């Protein structure tokens, strides 16, 4: 009963709480390191996302997860809406933010950097939560820009030339992507006279204007999601950002624009999609898997390797589109392609953040991340190497990790829809992922000259909590593999709510 009463206010609260955190941190510029404050805000976010999940999975009540801001209903006003897909992504964001906030409080030892980091960090969370709850095409543009500008400023926080150049390039790409998206929205508004996503979905027809709008929106979002061949900006940006920022950029920010791709292609404008276009997205995704894995294998720096791994993992996400093509009505059913992809998104968010933390801790300890210079470090950094290894197992898709379940569901989707060639791509991609992860593990486990190398290196000890943050995320990625049921159920619940 109480939950039904507070449920409508959950949606604005989920956007407001991180904004409040940003303002609090901005006002407290002189305090350092602010572990308690930010952990508290992180917990509040987890709590809100948890309540939303519970409210959505209540069996007997149809809770209308819709909030009309300031009482102005569509088409004039802005609405926030939530379904199971949004709620799962909000929960992932909240959990990552909680762990990474604790990590960041220890990571930013420099007071000035810390003071600039925290407001931007929570502003980014505001943008992410806003995207997941957006029910309005223009509101999506605004939240995308909040994410974009906050990410750019966070990348630039490193302060060295490489980071500034990467941030500038990312800023230009982000602005270009947003403008393409906005032009698409302008065309939609011209055609249908509304910006409300639900109204657009019911009004949309297959005509050249809608095709043009969907193409522009997709190009904008693909630029931001870094699907091959629009991925060129990602590796330098993700590799040169501060560690917690890299983790969020790879784990959540690219997923926000992917989430919008899913919304627009499968939910809002499915009438304008064609089988050919859906297959094309799958082909680009497959190319991204191969190119990302090969580039990761050839990378000399650890963080660059992890960043290229994101290019590859983003490729898997786009296999959703060809796999949902054969049965557009069936895509919401649990166990379908969407369930596989949502599993993939969550698994990748957890595993990749864990991997970035492990890489960051290794970098913290040795002040560089040249893979060849890290020969035999397993004895000095056992915990971080262990984190890297189990996060890697999830990325490769070894059982019993969440990555395994995701790939298993994807394979099932590929076989049952009769498109076996995608199954081949998934399996081969897993082998390639194993190649780059074992290449690194091979180097760090090499004990041949361990004693003399370790004497030359002067490792700085990593605080235990920093190592444990990474381990916690990696363990979560494994645990998700043991309990696949609840998330799949929630997705099927969402279908009833959003329909």
């Amino acid at each position: 009963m109480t939950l039904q009463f507070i449920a409508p206010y959950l949606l604005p609260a989920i956007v407001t709480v991180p904004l409040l955190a940003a303002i609090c941190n901005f006002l407290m510029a002189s305090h350092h390191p602010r572990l308690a404050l930010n952990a508290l805000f992180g917990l509040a976010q987890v709590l809100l996302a948890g309540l939303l999940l519970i409210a959505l999975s209540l069996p007997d009540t149809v809770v209308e997860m819709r909030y009309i801001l300031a009482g102005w209903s569509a088409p004039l006003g802005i609405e926030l809406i939530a379904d199971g897909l949004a709620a799962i992504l909000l929960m992932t964001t909240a959990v990552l933010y909680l762990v990474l906030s604790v990590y960041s409080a220890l990571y930013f030892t420099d007071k000035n950097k810390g003071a600039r980091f925290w407001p931007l960090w929570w502003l980014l969370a505001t943008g992410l939560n806003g995207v997941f709850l957006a029910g309005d095409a223009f509101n999506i543009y605004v939240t995308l820009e909040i994410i974009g500008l906050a990410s750019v400023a966070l990348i630039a926080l490193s302060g060295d030339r490489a980071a500034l150049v990467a941030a500038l390039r990312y800023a230009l790409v982000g602005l270009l992507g947003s403008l393409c998206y906005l032009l698409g929205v302008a065309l939609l508004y011209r055609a249908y006279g509304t910006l409300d996503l639900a109204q657009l979905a019911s009004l949309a027809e297959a005509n050249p204007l809608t095709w043009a709008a969907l193409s522009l929106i997709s190009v904008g979002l693909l630029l931001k999601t870094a699907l091959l061949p629009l991925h060129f900006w990602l590796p330098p940006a993700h590799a040169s950002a501060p560690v917690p920022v890299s983790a969020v950029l790879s784990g959540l920010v690219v997923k926000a624009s992917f989430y919008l791709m899913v919304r627009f292609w499968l939910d809002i404008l499915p009438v304008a999609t064609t089988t050919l276009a859906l297959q094309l997205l799958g082909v680009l995704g497959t190319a991204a898997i191969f190119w990302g894995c090969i580039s990761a294998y050839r990378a000399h720096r650890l963080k660059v390797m992890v960043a290229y791994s994101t290019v590859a993992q983003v490729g898997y996400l786009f296999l959703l589109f060809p796999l949902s093509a054969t049965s557009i009505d069936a895509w919401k059913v649990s166990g379908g392609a969407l369930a596989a992809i949502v599993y993939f998104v969550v698994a990748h968010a957890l595993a990749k953040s864990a991997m970035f933390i492990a890489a960051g801790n290794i970098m913290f300890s040795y002040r560089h991340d040249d893979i060849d210079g890290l020969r035999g470090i397993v004895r000095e950094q056992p915990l971080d190497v262990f984190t890297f290894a189990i996060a890697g197992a999830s990325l490769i898709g070894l059982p019993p990790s969440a990555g395994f379940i995701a790939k298993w569901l994807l394979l099932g989707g590929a076989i049952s829809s009769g498109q076996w060639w995608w199954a081949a791509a998934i399996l081969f991609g897993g082998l390639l992922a194993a190649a780059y992860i074992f290449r690194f593990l091979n180097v760090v486990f090499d004990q041949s000259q361990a004693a003399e190398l370790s004497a030359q290196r002067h490792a700085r000890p990593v605080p235990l909590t920093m190592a444990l943050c990474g381990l916690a995320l990696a363990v979560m990625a494994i645990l998700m593999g043991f309990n696949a049921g609840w998330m799949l159920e929630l997705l099927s619940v969402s279908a009833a709510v959003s329909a």
Partner: protein
Amino acid sequence: MTQELIYSVTGIALFAIGLFGLIVAGHIVRKLVAINMMGIGVFMLFLATALHGPDTVDPIPHALVLTGIVVAVAGTCLCLWLAISISKLDNEKRKNPQQ
């Protein structure tokens, strides 16, 4: 050829010219000018859409354009700040090459 159509076509043309400039231009300030031109193209299309309806002028596109301008200013500022920071670092390096 109505007024609305002229505005719409001009808006799309500005977007296209801006996109061309963004890809071709080498200097960062030129790139930023090009991006702003793309933005203005989109805004013009929105403003033309305000006249699209049957009778009265639709106020929503104006509100959208206003928001868009604010976002464009913020984005341009951030890019300019990044460009200035990079050139400062380069100048320092030129003065003390040994660092």
